[in-house]
């Protein structure tokens, strides 16, 4: 095997401690050390063995486009290839393997029933350009899910097509822009974003052509309502608020904020990524919100790393509904039809356009509807109750060891937020996170939200049992106590992972993105 000299792996796992020698292979029992695909195999191996083509008199017409040198494909047999990727997959960490407490990500279990439904041929094998009378079932899924989303949020309409949370944000802001322009108020160029909002919110507003102004948070971690009201005026297009916010708190003044924004002629966008904490309990429409995206892939299962792509439908108030994007599904004379540019006509002439070429993430629609129907209305209410209960259990179990800056603000919502205050000099959140890896847990979200120094944001979701939470709490308590005592071994953690602590600074400053063959040879498979 050739030695990788490209700087890809600066550190090797700790081995050979005590009386046990390190293994010759570098493997640790059945946890296998895996080389890069370019470093295994050889130039004489291929997966498929073609007979040598007979020499022909044909002349190439490629001209200057003809390849001048081998392209460097790795040479592996089929079993070698299968093993390579299977081994790599064993080093991956996902929700099917263990607790995944990433705050803001809602890493809940993805029920297998969802997957079974999404794979039904009538949903998985359809083409977006098929005649609508051949896809009535698929359209009914979209229509029924849309009805659930509108009902759960207390809004007027929903655009199903956006393909992720931030894509939904953009959809909502574009609708706000279209509504303002229709009123002749396109001069409103400022969107207010509180510090406790998701980081994508200011990016979305800027992308849609707005200037962003920050609104500070109060000491208790909520929007400073007075500061927000003071900033409202004829130049403000709207606000983007995350509720529950990234401090894990419910914005109690939401109704008051919405009324003030509307009175000033603006619109209210709500980042609904944290809808999991309030689904079945609060209807955003009752809070005066004009547009909100729903992360189907969080609130209704299938988080990232859990099976599917994203999907971010946007619900609209009556004021924004005329500007919602195409297409949408309607039921006319017992048939489901797609309302598109040709058919929208006068009853949807104000639409700002289209977010995607077709209809959105069919696979996610099926999974989300399956999740909703299998839980039922009462089950969804239980989801948010249990998500909030689990987060508060973690918050109150650890607030004697870790600093909980907003602990005094009352119960949290779906995520528990801690700071690095109280850790020993020179120790930070990163050391706690790396220590958790040694304990077998994926770390929590770190250094976000920015309003808290050295933030640790833990979102357990409702799908973890009390036993799992207790194990995590014991591990985090132990690591936090080591960090408070200044245990030097924590500064070099993880010690039991396949790789020791990586040099993130070097990796960011001088990234090595392409493998370079230390000794170029004639390549196989070409």
């Amino acid at each position, binding site marked *: 095997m050739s030695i990788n000299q490209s700087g890809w792996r600066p550190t090797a796992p700790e081995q050979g401690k005590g009386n046990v020698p390190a293994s010759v292979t570098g493997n640790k029992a059945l946890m296998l050390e895996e080389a890069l695909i370019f470093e295994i195999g050889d130039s004489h191996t291929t997966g498929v063995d073609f007979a040598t083509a007979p020499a022909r008199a044909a002349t190439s017409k490629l001209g200057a486009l003809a390849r001048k040198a081998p392209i460097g494909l790795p040479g592996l047999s089929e079993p070698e290839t299968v093993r390579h990727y299977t081994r790599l997959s064993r080093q991956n960490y996902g929700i099917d393997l263990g607790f995944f407490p990433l705050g803001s990500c809602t890493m809940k279990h993805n029920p297998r029933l969802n997957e079974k439904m999404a794979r039904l041929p009538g949903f998985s094998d359809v083409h977006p350009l098929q005649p609508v009378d051949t896809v009535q079932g698929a359209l009914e899924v979209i229509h029924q899910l849309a009805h659930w989303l509108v009902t759960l949020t207390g809004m007027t309409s929903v655009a199903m097509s956006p393909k992720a949370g931030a894509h939904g944000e953009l959809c909502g802001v574009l609708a706000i822009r279209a509504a303002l322009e229709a009123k002749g108020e396109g001069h409103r160029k400022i969107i207010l974003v509180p510090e406790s909002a998701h980081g994508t919110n200011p990016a979305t507003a800027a992308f849609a052509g707005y200037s962003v102004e920050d609104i500070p948070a109060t000491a208790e971690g909520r929007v400073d309502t007075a500061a927000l009201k003071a900033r409202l005026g004829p130049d403000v297009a709207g606000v983007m608020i995350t509720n529950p916010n990234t401090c894990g708190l419910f914005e109690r003044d939401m109704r008051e904020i919405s009324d003030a924004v509307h009175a000033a002629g603006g619109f209210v966008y709500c980042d609904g990524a944290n809808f999991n904490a309030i689904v079945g309990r609060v209807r955003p429409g009752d809070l005066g919100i004009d547009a909100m995206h729903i992360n189907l892939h969080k609130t209704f299962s299938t988080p990232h790393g859990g099976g599917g792509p994203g999907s971010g439908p946007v619900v609209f108030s009556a004021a924004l509904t005329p500007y919602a994007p195409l297409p949408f599904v309607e039921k006319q004379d017992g048939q489901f039809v797609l309302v598109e540019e040709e058919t929208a006509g006068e009853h949807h002439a104000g639409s700002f356009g289209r977010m995607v070429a077709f209809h959105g993430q069919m696979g996610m629609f099926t999974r989300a509807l399956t999740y909703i129907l299998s839980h039922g209305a009462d089950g969804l209410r239980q989801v948010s109750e249990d998500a909030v209960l689990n987060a508060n259990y973690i918050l109150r179990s650890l607030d004697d060891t870790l600093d909980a800056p907003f602990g005094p603000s009352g119960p949290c919502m779906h995520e528990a937020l801690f700071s690095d205050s109280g850790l020993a000099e020179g120790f930070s959140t990163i050391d706690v996170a790396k220590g958790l890896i040694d304990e077998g847990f994926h770390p929590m979200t770190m*250094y976000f939200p*920015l309003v808290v120094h050295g933030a640790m944001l833990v979102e357990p979701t409702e799908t973890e049992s009390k036993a799992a939470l207790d194990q995590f709490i014991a591990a985090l308590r132990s690591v936090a106590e080591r960090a408070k005592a200044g245990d030097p071994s924590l500064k070099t953690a993880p010690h039991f992972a396949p790789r020791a602590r990586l040099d993130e*600074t070097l990796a960011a400053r001088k990234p090595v993105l392409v493998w370079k063959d230390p000794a170029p040879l004639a390549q196989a498979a070409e």
Partner: protein
Amino acid sequence: MSRFFTQDHEWVDVDGDVGTVGISEYAQSQLGDVVFVEVPEAGKQLTKGADAAVVESVKAASDVYSPVSGTVIEGNAALADDSSLVNSDAEAAGWFFKLTLSDPSELDSLMDEAAYAAFVEGL
């Protein structure tokens, strides 16, 4: 030449009508290892408090605001090759950009070194 600080942890050295802007030692210590810096191009008009530059560390990306209004004379090209200058020498070699001040009276609203030290102490 005199040095002023903002509450957002930028400093500006003023020499005649030319200001040199960077981020404070305290700011770099809070950011952690800086991995990328984007400085404004010469000729760019900046108003006091507007986004002027971007600094990205292993922890976070942050905007750097202009402490005063003016026209950019040059950005510090050295930061493109070696962003670690911001960590090693934040208040000298790690400067971000120079600008011609359009309204020197804006300096009155900034802090001097002693006031800034007291401000940081209180954080």
